[in-house]
């Protein structure tokens, strides 16, 4: 925001500075234009005045020779004057006044021709004692100067009261003496027109001063020829006006600024040649700069508008940047929280593999790959009381809501399975809890199993989850009752199922993220492909990696559509749980052949071990339990690096087979006892055989070095 303000301020200052400079130069330009216009006007006016003046002057000069010629015939001089008046429109009157004494020392002679008020030519004589023309300026001046002389303008009192001036010039005789003064009274009517026409600017005005400072032309008519400039300016304290007046009266030219009437004016003045008049053009300064001020006004307005728009835009940008930044911050925070969420979620599921490195009876691995940072899939497993509790689940939906339910589900599983061994009960209780406050109608498909690690007995309960695969001789789908997912029906009682896992059996649990992984052609990965990948024999971790790889290869560039979760459980307990029936003994042969396969035993050793085990187990099956009672005989094989140990145990009556007397194999047919060969063979085959009674159990342990 601060940067934005700064930008606006800088922009404003720059704009204002440029417009000030612009203004300054424009002002200068306008002033010089005004000067040019004024000076041009002054010159034009000068020329126009001169034009008329010259006409008159020329007319007078052209008549000089006639006047001269007539000097000897004074009566004819009236015709000279009459012709001048008649032939020249601007010449209102004319006289040829003889210098007293030219004809006769005391005789005055001055015939005067003039236009009367009706415009008719009239003739009179100025040679009256009252008028006494030799004393008149128009007569004296040219006589003194010996050249033509323009009189001060005057108002013709005798005629129409118009402004007049008189040009008078000496007329010399042949010997060069001034014999007469010839005059032309020139109407200055036109001056007001010529000078007043000068309108450089609408409210500019012109003033024409006579030599003596009489106002010949003025915007105020009443001042014309009634006041001199000195009189008019005497009231002003401003010396500028005095100076201008002096300059004008002394025939100077120039321009000066002048303040009067509360306004600044520019005064341009120049003399009118020949006449000694001075003309000035007065232009109010605001008139000169009116256009500029208007322009500057508009420019400033637009600049202001521009600045305002800039400010608005900047503010908008600033806000959007803020918003964006805020969004970014929020996104970052969100990302961060999701990362943390991810790691929290991952910490909820066991993720160190192998999870039970000391156990040889179980190879378990699991993976959870959320489609987003956090997901709604879960798996869990742990061992309590030699039972593996495990589960897999898929919360409806994805993302954070699903992940919260996932956390709840996992917690419930842990807490309920902590004291409950039946998966049916675990699932039912979880369902009750999750259905109670399920405002958002989230549900969870869930599969829960409890594997008795000693016996391989598996109890499981399905809650709407897809059936796991079970690996026995082949890969099959584990038969499951579908049931409803968790969180749907509080009153639901979940059915529990069971099966036995034998050595090398395995379970593959997965969510639909695996089976329904989609490629860009919208094909599903499918269970068939899962089976194909799993048909190769691998350890649990490798199985999951293979599935992952296959899914990735299948999906290709398509984004992961759903959480992918799987759990591979390989039951490697060499364990058999037999009922106390002789027929059960047949299960030992495949059991041994699997061990032989794992330990790479030759057929002779395998057969021997089979025999020893059979003999030991037969003892238990036949003698541990009283006739007619049911019981189990558990067989466990412990495969060590260099030995194989069998542990045969039962809950029967205490019975120590090792206590049986040794068989004498050297006896003949008649002496040989039918029984007792079993334990004999056990002893012969195994390297170490020991019996102990542990609580209510008979435990026979026997080891074979390999």
């Amino acid at each position: 925001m601060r940067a934005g303000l700064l930008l606006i301020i800088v922009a404003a200052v720059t704009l204002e500075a440029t417009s000030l400079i612009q203004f300054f130069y424009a002002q200068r330009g306008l002033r010089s234009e005004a000067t040019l216009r004024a000076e041009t006007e002054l010159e034009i006016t000068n020329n126009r005045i001169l034009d008329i003046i010259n006409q008159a002057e020329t007319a007078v000069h052209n008549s000089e020779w006639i006047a001269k010629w007539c000097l000897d015939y004074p009566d004819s001089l009236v015709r000279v004057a009459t012709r001048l008046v008649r032939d020249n429109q601007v010449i209102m009157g004319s006289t040829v006044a003889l210098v007293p004494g030219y004809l006769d020392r005391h005789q005055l002679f001055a015939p005067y021709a003039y236009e009367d008020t009706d415009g008719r030519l009239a003739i009179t004589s100025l040679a009256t004692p009252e008028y006494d023309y030799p004393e008149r300026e128009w007569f004296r001046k040219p006589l003194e100067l010996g050249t033509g002389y323009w009189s001060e303008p005057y108002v013709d009192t005798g005629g129409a009261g118009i402004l007049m001036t008189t040009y008078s010039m000496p007329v010399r005789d042949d010997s060069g003496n001034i014999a007469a003064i010839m005059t032309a009274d020139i109407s200055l009517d036109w001056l007001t027109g010529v000078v007043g026409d000068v309108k450089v600017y609408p409210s500019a005005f012109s003033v024409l001063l006579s030599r003596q400072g009489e106002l010949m032309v003025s915007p105020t008519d009443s001042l014309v020829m009634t006041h001199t400039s000195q009189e008019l300016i005497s009231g002003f304290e401003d010396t500028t006006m005095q100076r201008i007046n002096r300059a004008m009266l002394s025939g100077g030219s120039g321009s000066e600024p002048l303040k009067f009437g509360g306004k600044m004016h520019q005064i341009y003045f120049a003399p009118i040649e020949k006449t000694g008049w001075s003309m000035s053009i007065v232009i109010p300064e605001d008139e000169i700069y009116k256009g500029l001020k208007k322009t500057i006004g508009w420019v400033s307005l637009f600049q202001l508008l521009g600045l305002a728009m800039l400010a608005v835009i900047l503010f908008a940008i600033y806000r959007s940047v803020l918003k964006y930044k805020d969004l970014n911050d929020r996104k970052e925070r969100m990302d961060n929280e999701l990362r943390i969420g991810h790691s929290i979620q991952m910490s909820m599921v066991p993720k160190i593999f192998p999870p039970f490195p000391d156990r040889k009876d179980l190879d378990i691995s699991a993976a959870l790959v959320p489609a987003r940072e956090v997901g709604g899939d879960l798996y869990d497993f742990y061992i309590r009381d030699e039972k593996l509790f495990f589960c897999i689940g898929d919360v409806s939906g994805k993302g954070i809501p699903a992940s919260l339910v996932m956390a709840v589900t996992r917690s419930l599983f842990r807490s309920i399975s902590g004291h409950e061994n039946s998966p049916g009960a675990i699932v039912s209780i979880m369902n009750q809890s999750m259905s109670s406050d399920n405002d958002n109608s989230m549900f969870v498909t869930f599969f829960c199993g409890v594997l008795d690690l000693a016996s391989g007995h598996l109890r499981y309960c399905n809650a709407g989850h897809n059936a796991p695969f079970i690996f026995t001789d082949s890969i099959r789908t584990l038969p499951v009752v579908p049931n409803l997912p968790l969180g749907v029906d509080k009153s639901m009682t979940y059915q529990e199922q069971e099966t036995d896992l034998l050595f090398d059996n395995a379970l593959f649990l997965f969510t639909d993220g695996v089976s329904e992984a989609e490629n860009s052609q919208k094909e599903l990965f499918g269970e068939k492909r899962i089976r194909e990948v799993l048909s190769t024999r691998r350890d649990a971790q490798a199985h999951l990696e293979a599935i992952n790889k296959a899914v990735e290869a299948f999906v290709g560039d398509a984004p992961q559509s759903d959480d992918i979760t799987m759990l591979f459980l390989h039951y490697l307990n060499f364990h058999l749980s037999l009922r106390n029936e002789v027929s059960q003994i047949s299960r030992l042969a495949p059991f041994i052949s699997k061990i032989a396969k794992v330990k790479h035993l030759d057929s002779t050793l395998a057969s021997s071990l089979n025999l020893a085990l059979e003999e030991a187990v037969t003892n238990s099956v036949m003698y541990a339990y009283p006739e007619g009672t049911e019981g189990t005989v558990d067989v466990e094989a412990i495969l060590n690096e260099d030995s194989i140990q069998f542990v045969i145990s039962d809950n029967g009556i205490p019975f120590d087979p090792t206590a049986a007397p040794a068989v004498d194999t050297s006896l003949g047919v008649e002496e040989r006892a039918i029984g007792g060969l079993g334990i004999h063979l056990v002893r012969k085959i195994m390297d170490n055989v020991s019996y102990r009674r542990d609580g209510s159990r008979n435990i026979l342990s026997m080891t074979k070095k390999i």
Partner: protein
Amino acid sequence: MQTIINKQQDETTIQFVGRMDTPAAQEAATMMDKFQEAASGTVILDCSKLEYISSSGLRIFLSIRKAAAAQGGKVIVQDINDNIRNVFMMTGFLNLFEIR
């Protein structure tokens, strides 16, 4: 396990096919009357297709042998595989039977 009895005059061939574990031996034991009856003459125990034998099976063999001994008969064990030979050795049966 399958038990095939083939009697020709006083010579009876009893062929065991398969594994003679405890359950199989118990089943075979139901035919013990026939075995003992045959033991009055020559009994040939054909083991060419016997894969495995446990002590229960050995008891049947021994019972036949004892019956033969009592009745003046003769028992010949024929074509035992190495594993069974090993069992016979461990139990001293090699001395009790005529092995062919």
